[in-house]
């Protein structure tokens, strides 16, 4: 076994060397010689991002509970570190034992963001693992990948031996068992891949063939042999209370993006906002019980020493036992001087009171996500929030002493007109206007607003998966127009926006097919890495990569698809039916709302999992589709 030697000549030359030394509190220590399976959990971004990721904490914990397995961590070294490592010929290593990743049995990447794909290639290469799956031999690790972006695995098909679709808690156990059995059998690599392909939720791209029409669209995706399933069904955990959730999470030395305990209230979301991939690919909603959460909160604080807990979910206000749960949690947190952070809460009297008690630190920012500037467009995306709701919430917040709010919007949504874009600024103006006087009466300063727009990127498994994305020039025009409107009118509003070029590439990769493998490979060879970071992203590099491979990014990003077109991800079954997505897309164009899961079932298909809210609602399931309350 080789261990990479770290010294001053390396670590005193880089920023934040503590990212590269491991040995954090709660890091798992095992003798690598005494386990059957060595698993390298790889996060294709910087340590400070990766160590904030809940999925990694869960799987690290689950794998290391097995005596026969040692799960270690590896992150993408920042560019300064990579340069030195390459210069010195040091291979990419895990933080637990400083072992080169090429010595592992399995390397598992999590796919949180399309713009980290080139980091995967770079990490494999830096670790001495062949970048292309077809070049790997018996001595090499298997490279797998999971996470939200894996619902469309195709762009990474050339690099990844197998994908895990959906939640990993249970399927990872089956994979490890399968690996041990395969190793004992002495068979070749293909035999292992065929073995795991039989596990529900595992997708082995090399066992499938894709046929294309002349225009580049897909004719068919089919298994190469009869033993391989036609479609791969997403795995989920039926009961969160029974699923293992870590309370002994690693406590980093350097400050990470989410440097706190994360308590996952529930998975999935009842809302069904039509742009939101997370709203569809985690269905159905399954809650963790308040008892379990309170227990986790207490033991986590004791075992980590963190003084902050964040409640994690897609929409915390929808947690069914929120008031009782928070009451209990506050009793504990106030006594132990632990701050609670409560993201994704709807702002109302209850939540403001909660926030007041939860966090002893300054009342700084509150965030709202109206997502679109006009009621018409909010109806298109099924975002059940009105100007009046928003106004009332912000007034309440200002009266309560909060003086800065941040509003998140998207530009480039389907059917959007310049009027909708202007609606974003108008909403900001009217909020400022409506809060004039309130702050004075309560002795606060006036309201400051940050308007933030992201660029809408159509994602697989959403009702907008067929939609064209706005061209870069159109997005830029919308941004400038907004910027101009706001600057002319008030200084109380700050406007933030994202680089449309990065969003454009994200759109290409998220709905890409297998042919993009060559483009990703070329872009990486041209130097692409950390593409999600403005300072490292180069549009020119990607443009060249497309050109060299004779492909057109607009085919992926800006093309309207027909409902009948075979999508690159059609052989993946996430539980939500394509028919439901088509219905939702049509309703979007009608501006028709769809009720949320708590108000009644809309037959999305997720009930095939026979758990969570689908079970709870089965009894009073009515077929008629009613509208949002308040409409």
């Amino acid at each position, binding site marked *: 076994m080789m261990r990479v030697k770290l010294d*001053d000549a390396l*670590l*005193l030359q880089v920023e*934040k*060397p*503590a990212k*590269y*030394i491991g*040995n*954090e*509190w709660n890091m798992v220590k095992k003798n690598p010689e005494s386990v059957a399976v060595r698993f390298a959990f790889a996060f294709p971004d910087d340590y400070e991002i990766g160590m904030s990721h809940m999925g990694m904490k869960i799987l690290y914990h689950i794998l290391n509970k097995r005596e026969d397995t040692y799960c270690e961590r590896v992150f993408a070294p920042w560019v300064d570190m990579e340069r030195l490592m390459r210069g010195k010929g040091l291979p990419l290593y895990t933080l637990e034992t400083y072992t080169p990743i090429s010595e592992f049995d399995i390397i598992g990447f999590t796919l949180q963001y399309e713009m980290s794909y080139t980091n995967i290639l770079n990490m494999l290469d830096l670790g001495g693992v062949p970048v292309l799956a077809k070049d790997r031999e018996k001595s090499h690790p298997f490279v797998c990948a999971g996470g939200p972006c894996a619902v469309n695995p195709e762009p990474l098909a050339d690099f990844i031996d197998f994908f895990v679709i959906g939640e990993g808690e249970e399927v990872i156990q089956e994979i490890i068992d399968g690996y041990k059995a395969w190793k004992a059998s002495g068979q070749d690599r293909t035999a292992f891949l065929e073995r795991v392909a039989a596990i529900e939720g595992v997708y082995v791209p090399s066992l499938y063939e894709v046929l294309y029409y002349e225009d580049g669209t897909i004719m068919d995706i089919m298994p190469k042999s009869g033993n391989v399933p036609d479609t791969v069904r997403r795995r989920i955990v039926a009961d969160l209370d029974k699923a293992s959730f870590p309370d002994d999470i690693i*406590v980093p*030395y*350097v*400050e990470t993006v989410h440097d706190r305990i994360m308590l996952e209230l529930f998975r999935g979301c009842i809302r069904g906002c039509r742009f939101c991939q997370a709203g569809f690919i985690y269905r159905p909603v399954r809650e963790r019980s308040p008892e379990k959460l309170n227990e986790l909160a207490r033991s986590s*604080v*004791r*075992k*980590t*020493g*963190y*003084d902050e807990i964040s409640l994690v979910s897609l929409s915390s206000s929808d947690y069914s036992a929120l008031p009782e749960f928070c009451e209990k949690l506050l009793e504990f947190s106030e006594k132990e*001087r632990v701050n609670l952070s409560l993201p994704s809460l709807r702002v109302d009297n209850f939540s403001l009171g909660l926030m007041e008690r939860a966090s*002893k*630190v*300054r009342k700084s920012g509150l965030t709202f996500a109206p997502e679109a500037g006009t009621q018409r467009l909010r109806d298109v995306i099924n975002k059940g929030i009105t100007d009046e709701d928003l106004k009332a919430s912000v007034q309440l917040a200002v009266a309560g002493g909060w003086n800065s709010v941040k509003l998140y919007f998207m530009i480039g949504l389907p059917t959007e007109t310049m009027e909708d874009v202007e609606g974003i600024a108008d909403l900001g103006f009217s909020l400022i206007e409506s809060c004039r006087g309130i702050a004075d009466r309560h002795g606060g300063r006036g309201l400051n607003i940050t308007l933030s727009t992201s660029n809408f990127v159509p994602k697989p498994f959403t009702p907008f998966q067929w939609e064209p994305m706005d061209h870069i020039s159109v997005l830029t025009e919308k941004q400038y127009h907004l910027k101009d409107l706001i600057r002319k009118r008030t200084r109380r509003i700050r406007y933030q926006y994202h680089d449309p070029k990065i969003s454009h590439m994200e759109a290409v990769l998220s709905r890409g097919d297998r042919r993009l493998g060559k483009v990703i490979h070329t872009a990486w060879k041209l130097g692409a890495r950390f593409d999600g970071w403005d300072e490292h992203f180069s549009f020119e590099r990607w443009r060249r990569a497309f050109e060299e491979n004779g492909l057109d990014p607009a085919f992926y990003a800006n093309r309207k698809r027909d409902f009948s077109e075979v999508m690159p991800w059609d052989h993946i079954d996430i539980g939500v039916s394509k028919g439901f997505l088509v219905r939702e897309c049509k309703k979007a164009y009608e501006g028709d709302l769809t009720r949320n899961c708590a108000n009644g079932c809309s037959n999305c298909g997720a009930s095939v999992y026979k758990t969570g809210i689908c079970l709870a609602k089965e009894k009073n399931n009515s077929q008629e589709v009613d509208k949002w309350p308040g409409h």
Partner: protein
Amino acid sequence: MARALRFRFFRDERLKYLAHLDVLRLFERALKRSGLPVAYTQGFNPRQKIVFGLPMAVGLTSSAEYADIEFAGDLAPEAFISRLNQVLPDGIKVLDAMPLLKKGSIMSQITSAKYEIEFAVPRHMDYDEINGIVIDFLGNEDITVMKKGKKGSKPVNIRPLIYSLSVRKPDNDGYILDAFLSAGAKNNLRPDLLMKALNLITGLDLAVGSIHRKAMYTSAFNEWKDPFEVANDD
């Protein structure tokens, strides 16, 4: 038993790449894990009442770091040491602690520190030659270098901040410079800046290796004293 303690801790190779703020966070969380009755400040954002002697630069190891800590109740030094060490990561541990009977911040008391600075010479030089160079260096009345401060860099004569320097040659290839330097909130001289100045003035290209802090002192009545000695002086 005491409501406040002064303690000494070490940091070895394993955690020397932590920045000062990382060390502060590390103690904050370890104290929380320990369940010790640490006292908190009043106000909006309560903080643990703990003060450190000197910041630790990235790369520095030390066998003599000091901190003062207050508790909400009485605590025996032995109990403090054993309970905190159980929850401190390998690489930073408390060595000893003593009751602190009166207020006075360790941060304002520290005025000097001793370092061992490993270095390598660029060409073959025997001990006498390198020792002579260091003695000559000390003979300068003015050693002005650019020193980084809160308001950017400015020229500072660091000679008055150097109390003594002496060269040792251990068995291995390199040398060790024992440096006794002014330290603390007012006139801090970092050992890396000293080495920069040494290279600058002598025209040598000494390669600095690891730097170890082996002591820090307070000054009282024109005498250097161990922070434990002065803890309860009047």
